[in-house]
């Protein structure tokens, strides 16, 4: 039996600013993970990944990142993805600034 498909979001870096973005249900790029559409079906996730990867004039490095679904929306399951939602830990120079 293949491994069970875990919930995912489509994520990338914005072409112009380089910062982390997530794909929303309306196929727009958002800076916030909470806006991201959570994908629970593998075939659907693959199609959205391929479509998003074709948007080369908007983003760079598109991939699927694992998330956990919670009442407060999707949450990262790996520390790397957690840092990507916030920014560096030595200065509040990333998304931490906006989150305040």
């Amino acid at each position: 039996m293949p491994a069970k498909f875990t919930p995912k979001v489509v994520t990338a870096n914005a072409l112009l600013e380089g910062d982390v973005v997530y794909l929303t249900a309306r196929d727009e790029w958002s800076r916030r993970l909470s806006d991201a559409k959570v994908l629970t079906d593998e075939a659907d996730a693959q199609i959205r990944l391929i479509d998003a990867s074709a948007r080369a004039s908007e983003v760079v490095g598109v991939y699927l990142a694992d998330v956990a679904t919670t009442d407060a929306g999707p949450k990262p399951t790996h520390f790397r993805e957690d840092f990507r939602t916030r920014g560096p830990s030595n200065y509040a120079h990333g998304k931490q600034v906006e989150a305040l």
Partner: protein
Amino acid sequence: MYRYTDFDTAFVAERNAQFRAQVERRIDGSLTEDEFKPLRLMNGLYLQLHAYMLRVAVPYGTLNSAQMRQLAMIADRWDKGYGHFTTRQNIQFNWPKLRDVPDMLDALAEVQMHAIQTSGNTIRNVTADHFAGAAADEIADPRPVAELIRQWSTDHPEFQFLPRKFKVAVTGSPNDRAVTKAHDIGLRMVRNDAGDAGFEVIVGGGLGRTPMIGKIINSFLPEADLLPYLEAIVSVWNLLGRRDNKYKSRIKITVHEHGLDDIRARVEERFALLKSAFTGIDQQLYAGIKADFAPPAFSTRDTGPFDLSYANDPVFRAWVDSNVNAHRAPGYAIAQISLKAHGATPGDATSDQMRLMADLAAQYGHDELRVSHEQNIVLPHVHKADLPAVHAALKTLGLATANIGKISDIIACPGMDYCALATARSIPVAQEIATRYNELKLENDIGDLKIKISGCINACGHHHVGHIGILGLDRAGVENYQITLGGDHTETAQVGQRTGPGFAYDEIVPAVERIVDTYLSERTDADETFIDTFRRVGMTPFKTALYGEAEKRAKAA
């Protein structure tokens, strides 16, 4: 200092214009990312975790005050008001926007700087002893050699698609401050018995996944043969080096797989062919470059003000004792400015700090600054009489930390706070160790101790050659830190040995404390440094301190 010729200026301007057009074509969609990526990397532009990063070459770590001021201007105008000085004597800007990068490159060109060959499979920025031209123990200034190599290697048509990156370091002093044994090629300037100048050529050193100490391929290469010999080495590797597996592509693996004697024979054969192609132009060029590095006009002055402050001001005295080194000119000193204030990010300087350092170089330092591979800034030529004024000025902006070579003078790579390749963070580990030892007030008692931290196996933080090396890994989705002990980055270079299993993020600082406590209790007296104690007592007491007796018994069983 070397000044651009008309050719250099035109070359950099043309590259910048090309890159500006490439950025435009990327933004308007006519270039895909796959097409654009190699172009941006050729110009030092990376995409990291949260933003782009622009890596600017500071050739052999030397810059003047106008260049430092321009870096400050760039930090303010297009970045977030700071820059990160790196172990490769470069500066990195962590937050540029793609559209702004061409303007940043033009601003760099105004002060004869660029980002060419700071990335990609080319011959990278040549690094050199940061005390070059100033050190009391120096045979000759290595920077003219480094500049010659830079001119030869920049845009060298044969070497734009090498199997992998290629790094060269040069030292002119027997005390190796340029880590020559951990580079693809390390050059040590030496004299033979007849007194002729030449090089000891070391090949196949490197860190990363497979750390190796370089081996001597030629113990005396006459000065005039340098470029044909280097060209022979790089071209032998260019053909033999493995392109099927990037983990086996560096010259260290080629030397390891073929054996030093085989490589030497091939290099000699190639050298014999190439030597006649270098018709002496390189030597004319070298003579011209040497003139550009003529020593500044040192003055003879009374060192009275220095002696007075040294006798009466304990804070100044502590700073001099740890941050000031012997200069070859009488009355002069080399002053190191620590970018490691306790708790700060190693290697970072704000634009205000950059401007202050530029002002001090202009006023007291013959207009010269250096970036050290240990991520500090050096004022190489300061008269001792001026040191009290320099120190007082540095204090105003948090730049007077007296910790060079101490436990808080940590090399740390950007790690997972910035780097897309990282498997764990390194900056906060450095910050916490420094903060902890500042609280304990043990730093001076501990003395010389190099901690070096990398956030992944690539080893940008030189952890293999740290007295205490820390490597951040991802173990089943949590940060885990492996420790090595006994590494050495000097002329007696050695790769550190692993202590055993790694430590979780919140266990790593206590683990370092147990290692340091073990050193303090094992050393014969305060004069026996950490590395000497480790070499004498070996790994066992440190292992016991880290893992307890149970672990040791389990191993023995």
